[in-house]
Structure formats: structure tokens, C-alpha cells
């Protein structure tokens, strides 16, 4: 196996929640709580979970857009966990992000040309204006837009087109790793497939590694080689995409898979409807975070001991005391 592009160990991110008069009481929110993950060149790793599970925070910490509380992040072998801003800057261009909302992630006052060209200039990737213009036109063609779009502003585009601009912006600095944070959730169904295909083509062509964050298991399953399922800051299951779908081991993964509405009215479904909500990360349940909603939880075990992620099959890991 190739050397990992990104390798994360025991990654932890706590936020401080202040409460009481004048916010004098501080309590930690463990948004990400000891996550290990690797992404290889040319590989897509999916990261799924519901809102508040820490998946977006994880993506941002990996890129050092947020500072980790503990753990380590390696990019192409180099430890970047504690690098300062200046040391990090030359590495930034290799690690990019595509955001969920193509409406708020583009500067409305900058033309497409300025948005895409800015990063190239900052990183000294183009010698002059002419080269910049040519590169922008190249990138636009690559993401399926026309050269004349370069002089337009974001409001002149549809949601799908804006997401293409966001992708072109990320590609402008020739990255090797891209965090795709819910890149298609804000788009219409017929446009989602276009963007998924585009991301796939670009990966084949450029050998990019993707961390694909989404709440939609179906999409993640199609694009990812491996999938990690997160619940309240921890990875509860990690498996090759097909194995996860065929044989989900963790009760949470099973519930998540069965909750996805299936466009087939005739299918009699054995749906597992979870009771209650995701607990507050301020006050997570002891032991296994999932035990209060779990159908098979065992008292005295699941509510006391944190299950470790253990191997259960070929490349398949699960954090559950009872999974077989």
C-alpha cells in the first residue's frame, strides 16, 4: 500500500462552552474525541454522521483551519499538528476544501476570475496576468464552465454552477488533498449527480485524495472506497464501502442505513426507527455514547465501558462491545 497522503491519530478537538453568570463556568464540548483515519492518494474516504457528530469539525482540524486539542496530523509524512501559520502557508495549497453552501462560500463582490486567480497569485503559481487568465480558463473548462463565465459575479450563476466555481477555486492551487464538506447537499437531485461525476473525473485525472463528508449515506457509499461512521465525536465503524453497506456491524450504522428513504414504494422495509435524538455533546452518555438509543445495549457493560474500535473483518473495524 502507498504511503498515506493524510494520516490522523487520536485527533481530539474540544471547544469551551461557557455558562452561568458572565460565562464563568467552563465546560468542554468534545466535538472530536480521539479519531484515527488515513487517506491515500487517489482514494476517497467517506465520513458520515448526523448533525453535531463532529464530522465537519474533524475536516477543519485535519486542514488545520482549527487547532487540535490533542492527537497528531501528518501530511505526506510530515507532522503538521503544531506548525505555526508561517510554516503552514506553503503547505496550504496542497490541502483544500470545498464547502457545502456555494452561496455563502464565494465572495459576492469578486468575479469568478478574481476568486479563482487570487490563490494562484498568493502562492506564486503564475508568472503574469496572461498566464493567470489562461489557467483560469483551463480550470473553468475542467469543471464544465465556459471561458466567458470568468468575468461574471457569483449571483449570476445557479447553485450547481456555483459549486463548480468552488471546485475550480479549490483546484486552482493544484492540491493533492481536498476535504469535500457536504459538497452536494445544497443542490437539486439532478445536479448532485453531475457534481459527483465531476469530482470523480478530477480525481482520476489528478490523483487527488478526498475526505468526503456527508450525511447522505447513499452518496457516500457510491463515491468512497472506505467509509467512517461518526457518532458524537467518535468513529463507531470503519469499513470498505461495499462491506459497510452489505454487512453493517454497528447498531447505529444499521439504523442510519435503514433510515434513508428508498425510492421504491413496493419494498416492505424493516426500518429501525431510533428513539430520541442525538444526545448533547456537552453531556454525552457514559460508556458507549450510543447506548441510550441502542436496541441491543447491555446494562453494566455498554453504559460503563467505552468500546474500542476493533477489527471484525477485512479492513472492517467496529466500536461496539456486542457486534459480531
Amino acid at each position, binding site marked *: 500500500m502507498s504511503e498515506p497522503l493524510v494520516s490522523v491519530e487520536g485527533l481530539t478537538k474540544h471547544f469551551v462552552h461557557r455558562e452561568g453568570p458572565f460565562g464563568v463556568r467552563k465546560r468542554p464540548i468534545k466535538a472530536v474525541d480521539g479519531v484515527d483515519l488515513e487517506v491515500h492518494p487517489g482514494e476517497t474516504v467517506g465520513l458520515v454522521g*448526523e*448533525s453535531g457528530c463532529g464530522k465537519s469539525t474533524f475536516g477543519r482540524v485535519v486542514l488545520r483551519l482549527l487547532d487540535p486539542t490533542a492527537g497528531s496530523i501528518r501530511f505526506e509524512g510530515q507532522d503538521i499538528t503544531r506548525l505555526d501559520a508561517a510554516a503552514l502557508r506553503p503547505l496550504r495549497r496542497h490541502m483544500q476544501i470545498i464547502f457545502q453552501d456555494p452561496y455563502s462560500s464565494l465572495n459576492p463582490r469578486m468575479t469568478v476570475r478574481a476568486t479563482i486567480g487570487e490563490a494562484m497569485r498568493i502562492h506564486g503559481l503564475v508568472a503574469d496576468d496572461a498566464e493567470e487568465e489562461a489557467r483560469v480558463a483551463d480550470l473553468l473548462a475542467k469543471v464544465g464552465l465556459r471561458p466567458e463565465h470568468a468575468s461574471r459575479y457569483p449571483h449570476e450563476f*445557479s*447553485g*450547481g*454552477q456555483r459549486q463548480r466555481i468552488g471546485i475550480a477555486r479549490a483546484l486552482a492551487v493544484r492540491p493533492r488533498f481536498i476535504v469535500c464538506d457536504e459538497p452536494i447537499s445544497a443542490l*437539486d*437531485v*439532478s*445536479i*448532485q*449527480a*453531475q457534481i*459527483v*461525476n465531476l469530482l*470523480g*473525473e478530477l*480525481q*482520476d485525472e489528478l490523483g487527488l485524495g478526498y475526505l468526503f463528508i456527508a*450525511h*447522505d*449515506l*447513499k*452518496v457516500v*457509499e*457510491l*463515491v468512497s472506497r472506505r467509509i467512517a461512521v461518526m457518532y458524537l465525536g467518535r468513529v463507531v465503524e470503519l469499513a470498505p464501502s461495499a462491506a459497510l453497506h452489505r454487512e453493517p456491524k454497528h447498531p447505529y450504522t444499521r*439504523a*442510519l442505513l*435503514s*433510515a*434513508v*428513504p*428508498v*425510492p*421504491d*414504494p*413496493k419494498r416492505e422495509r424493516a*426500518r429501525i*426507527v*431510533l428513539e430520541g*435524538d*442525538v444526545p448533547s455533546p456537552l453531556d454525552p452518555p457514559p460508556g458507549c455514547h450510543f447506548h441510550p438509543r441502542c436496541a441491543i445495549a447491555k446494562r453494566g457493560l455498554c453504559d460503563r465501558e467505552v468500546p474500542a474500535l476493533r477489527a471484525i473483518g477485512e479492513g472492517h473495524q467496529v466500536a461496539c462491545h456486542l457486534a459480531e
Partner: protein
Amino acid sequence: MGEPLLRVEDLVTAFHTDEGTIRAVDGISFELAEKQTLGVVGESGCGKSVTSLSIMRLLPSPPGEIERGAIRFRGRDLVTLPEREMRALRGNEISMIFQEPMSSLNPVQRIGKQIGEAVRQHRGASAKEARARAIEMLSLVGIPAPEKRVDAFPHELSGGMRQRVVIAIALACEPKLLIADEPTTALDVTIQAQILELLGELSARLGMSILFITHDLGVVAELTDEVVVMYAGKIVERAPTAELFAEPAHPYTRGLLASIPGYGAAERSASGRLRLPTIAGMVPDLSRLPRGCRYQDRCPLVRERCRESEPPLAPIGARRDVACFAHEGGPYRDGARA
């Protein structure tokens, strides 16, 4: 079958903007029978939400205006109903729930009061009766400890719980018709599953009809009896839900179904990568519609005729209609005539 609960006839809803008049809904007709659930599906801008706002008479006006058509609800035409009578209907016989539960709740009022308001308004209930009804409704929508939660503020509840409260408000007066506009879109899948199950159960128990507006065909398959598919302000297909999924007739419906990840047949490219089927291009700008069929630029079956005139919604079977010239000589399957 007698008179349907709701009958929309040739509805045209227009917005008067600086760039001219845009017909967001352009001559649609459909019916909803008692105790039935009808799904209205389409992508952003197809006119599905404008349809629901037209029925509720909640269009921002100006610039919005119902230009033509009738909306018959239990024998009355809502288009011409005086505002005072309309107000007596809303939240009483017809209720609506929206996508974002936080913005449809009053943040500074206890939820019990918000639920009780409708029964006080429409049924003349006393404060005490309203509170009792609120507690009853909270337990109906599956909120634990309703006697305690009745005094909670919206911010103290999770997203899923808030949507349950919104449903409790909508159902407090036992409406005949519930309009649900993307009620689960802002929720996580496990919470969405809870809310869909709740809506299905409540409609059966209360004998209520639901007009369910969504872009998610998966949700439609779970909950509805019949579906209409909208595209650029028009209905392009209508069918019983099972038939629509078994044999979608309009090229747009087929494209929409195929592009659902995991549903359509994905192809493998030379590099072994999965390629999802897509619908090429995008929805036309309503202020610059092409002559002829609105789907022509994205349609794999487009012919000369489609660019000249607009196909009418025509029957192709019992309770099945489609607006496509390809169906004139009988139904086709997979592009070829059957």
C-alpha cells in the same frame, strides 16, 4: 368517488418583477381526495412551493398574484374567498407546516401557548382548555413528558422536537387538509424517519389528507398514494405512486429517478469509476422560456415538434397523465415503442 377534498383547476400564479411577469405556476390542475396523500415533486424553482402558498393564500402580494384558475376546497373557491373567511380556515380546516421549524415558531413564547392559540382562536377555548389541548397534542406527536414540555421555549428543544411541536400546532384543530412543504428537509435522516412515520400514522388516525411537497423522491415513495411531478411551473406527470416508480413515463421523471444515487444504473468508466446517470443542463429561466416543451433542452427524446408546441397533459392510463409527445402513439419503454 364523490367530490374531492381539494381540486385545483388551471391555476396560474404570477410574480410581477422588474424583468417582467414570471408565471411560477402556469396552469396546473390536480385533485386530492379525502384521506389521501398526494406528493408534489420537483426541483427548486419548479413552482411546488408557490402552489402550496397559493392554496393557503399566503403569497407575498405584490409581487405575487393568482392570475387565473380556481382552488376548490369542500365546495368553496379559495381564490375568491374574502380574507376574513380565509383566516377562519387557516390553522383550522387547512394547516401548513414548513421546512425550517425554528423560523415557524415564536422564539419568545412557550410552546404550550403556541399550540393552544389555534384552539382559542378557532374554537373559543378557554386558557385552561387550550393548555389541556396543548398537552394532549404534545403527547399525540410523541413528545415525552408533555406536562413539563408544555412550558418550554422553542430553543430548549432539538430540531426534531421542534418539528413535532410545529406538527402539534398544525393539527390542534384537526384539519381536513395538511400542507407539508419539505417538512423533513432540514432534519437528519434518523429524525426524518421518525417524522415521516409520525405523519403517516397521524393522517390515518385523524382521517386527514396531506399535500406533501418535496424534492426527495425517496420520501414520496414512503408516504404518498399519488404523485404529481412539476417542471418549470407545469405538471409533467401524474400517477399513483407505485406506478410512477414502476414505470415513469415522462423523460424528466425518468431522469430524476435515475439520478438518485444508488437507484439509477450507474455505469463504470474506463478507469473503473462509477458514473451516475445525470440530466444534462439545467432548469430554464422562467423569464426566458423556450417555445414548445419546457424540457426540450435537456430531453434525450426531443423532436422537431417539441420545439414548436407545448405538449398538453394527456391521459395514458387510469389516473395517469403525462405531458410528452413521445406518448402519443402509445406508451414507450426505454426510449423504444412498446
